[in-house]
């Protein structure tokens, strides 16, 4: 697939945004500047960005607890995302969602979900809207190898299959459901399960290659947009950090050599080299791009720091369109 230099540079930019944003968020959790915890996408940037960039601007997306990468990959500005992680009034959800429940409807992000697999039916419903209203939008449901064993995925795949809904089921297989190796709780190959629903199922073995992910998802998105129905794409990837920041399980369940092997094939480093080798950009240009992203993250943190916390009364807003009962 021939992607324009601009598109390829945008891929690198968004991968860098995720990396630097999550590195900063991780630090902020450890310093107590972000309450609660966060789940970083560090190591999984190619899988996230390759999928998001295969979607168009008006397309929909839902995600999970590993949540920041998805909206960033779909093009959300960083300031309101960071402010949300801290619980500020200017957060993308006004401080009511936090890291686990980000959503940015302005870029088609219909919500991350703290319940594993629970957002898959939501994405399926967005695809139903597209089909009934015939508006050409495609949906993409991100879920992990853990969610691949939730029943709602198969209810959704069946419904999407029988109604030929424009949706891509995207399994981000980072090989561990918290501490549990996927292969110890998963029978067979996840991508192969698509066959049971009469839809294409592909496995991207090298999920650290952003172009490989893009190609697979783009094929699925085109099929969906043509009205030919859903696809399942499984992407093999790896998270570098703990399941969640601050969780101190150590490394007992993951071999350090295994992690080192994955870090060595870092998706951002690999793609940077490729951009240089292909003559898409020079090393200097890519250095400048990195500096821009670092500045963007700094600005997002500054925006967050400059923002007020929400007024306590906000806790009672947005439950219903119009307040009811004592709040009316």
């Amino acid at each position, binding site marked *: 697939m021939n992607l324009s230099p601009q598109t390829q540079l945008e891929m690198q930019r968004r991968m860098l945004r995720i990396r630097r944003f999550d590195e900063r968020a991780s630090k902020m959790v450890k310093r107590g500047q972000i309450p609660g915890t966060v789940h970083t996408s560090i190591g999984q940037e190619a899988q996230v960005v390759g999928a998001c960039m295969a979607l168009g601007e008006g397309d*929909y997306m*839902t995600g999970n607890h590993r949540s920041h990468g998805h909206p960033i990959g779909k093009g959300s500005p960083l300031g309101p995302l960071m402010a949300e992680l801290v619980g500020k009034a200017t*957060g*993308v*959800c*006004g*401080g*009511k*969602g936090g890291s686990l*429940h980000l*959503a*940015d*409807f302005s870029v088609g992000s*219909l*919500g991350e*979900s*703290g*319940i594993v697999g*629970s*957002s*898959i*039916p*939501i*994405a*399926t*419903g*967005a*695809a*139903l*809207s*597209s*089909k*009934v*209203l015939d*508006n050409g*939008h495609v*949906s993409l449901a991100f879920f992990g190898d853990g969610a691949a064993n939730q*029943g*709602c995925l198969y*209810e*959704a795949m*069946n*419904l999407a299959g*029988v*109604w030929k809904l424009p949706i891509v089921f995207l399994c981000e297989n980072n090989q561990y459901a918290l501490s549990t190796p996927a292969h110890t709780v998963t029978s067979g190959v996840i991508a192969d399960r698509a066959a049971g629903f009469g839809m294409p199922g592909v496995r991207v073995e090298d999920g650290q290659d952003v172009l490989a992910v893009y190609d697979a998802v783009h094929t699925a998105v085109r099929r969906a947009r043509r009205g030919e129905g859903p696809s399942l794409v499984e992407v093999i990837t790896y998270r570098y950090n703990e399941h969640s920041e601050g969780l101190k399980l150590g490394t007992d369940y993951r071999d350090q050599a295994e992690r080192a092997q994955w870090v060595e094939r870092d998706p951002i480093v690999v793609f940077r080299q490729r951009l240089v080798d292909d003559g898409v950009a020079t090393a200097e240009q890519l250095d400048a791009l990195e500096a821009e992203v670092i500045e963007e993250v700094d600005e997002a943190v500054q925006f967050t720091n400059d923002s007020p916390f929400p007024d306590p009364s906000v806790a009672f*807003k*947005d*439950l*219903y*369109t119009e307040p*009811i*009962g004592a709040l*009316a």
Partner: protein
Amino acid sequence: MTVMSYLGAIGAAQREAMEADPSVVIIGEDVEANVYGTTGGGKSRSDKGDFLQMFGSNRIRNTPISEEVIVGAAAGAAMTGLRPIVDLSYSSFLYMAMDQFVNQVAKNRYMFGGQASMPVVFRSAMFYGLNTGAHHSDRPYPMFMNVPGLKIVVPATPYDAKGLLRTAVDSDDPVLTFEACILWGTKGEVPEEEYRIPLGEARTVRRGDDATVVAISSAVPAAIAAAESLAEDGISVEVIDPRTLVPFDTEAVIRSVQRTGRLVVADPAHRTCSAAAEISAMVAEEAFESLRAPIVRVTTPDTQIPFSPSLEKQLYPSGPRITEAIRRVIGQPTSMPSHGARDMDQLATQAPR
């Protein structure tokens, strides 16, 4: 005005809503074949007014038996431009989709800071009192009253069933309607023109001065029967049907209790944490000074629903049980045997043994 059954009124509301707005769709099990009689003109597919013929298969959609994705997909569709009416048939099936109801439908608007609108109606029928046994007889609305973000509708008449459903479809918030199957055949006058009933406005079914009965769903006709029988003894009973439990018309109930000084709440749900429990607590908090006797709840005792007609029928609020409760709050001797209604009304898992 025309005379319509409760079920016919629901069908009429669905037809009007489908005609009024192309973004309204009906999805659910067996809706294409009009199995329950709310998606067609008559009982047969060939009858005039069949929804599938009128609105097409894009907007009338049979689903697989997959409640979790039905509910979640309806929510996702509502967040992106449709106004789905979901027919979940039996209320007992709602549990299959509990995660979607509680974690997605009820929470999305709130936790996304108002970005999401959720204009979706979940219809289900409570098949209690019809010998369908423990898996089909649930009256689960109190569980959902405990989930902020949902609106809960419990119509008891054809007029209310139609007007409330139109309002529910117009609502940008998720609405769960619990229809009583035992009322399906009830006939009543319904305007031929379109009308809507606001959510949160109780209906005073019958005026009275000696006691207030707040009755829910099929307890409404039972409360009317009780009031009529007591009227013969010169006892004047006010019957209030809240019609919606969320939002709840607190004011109407308080005003009535302030006047009568006595309250009976008749609720077909299980006693513990029932709607009756909430209404009783609310009146105790807000109108304690007006009460001249302890509040009495007439509910289904905390036991599962048995199959045999000889076992089931006694469990729900009935005319005689409500009559007995009213006599109790006004301090009149009761005619019920000692092992009758009173014992039943105290049968709660939380009650002292």
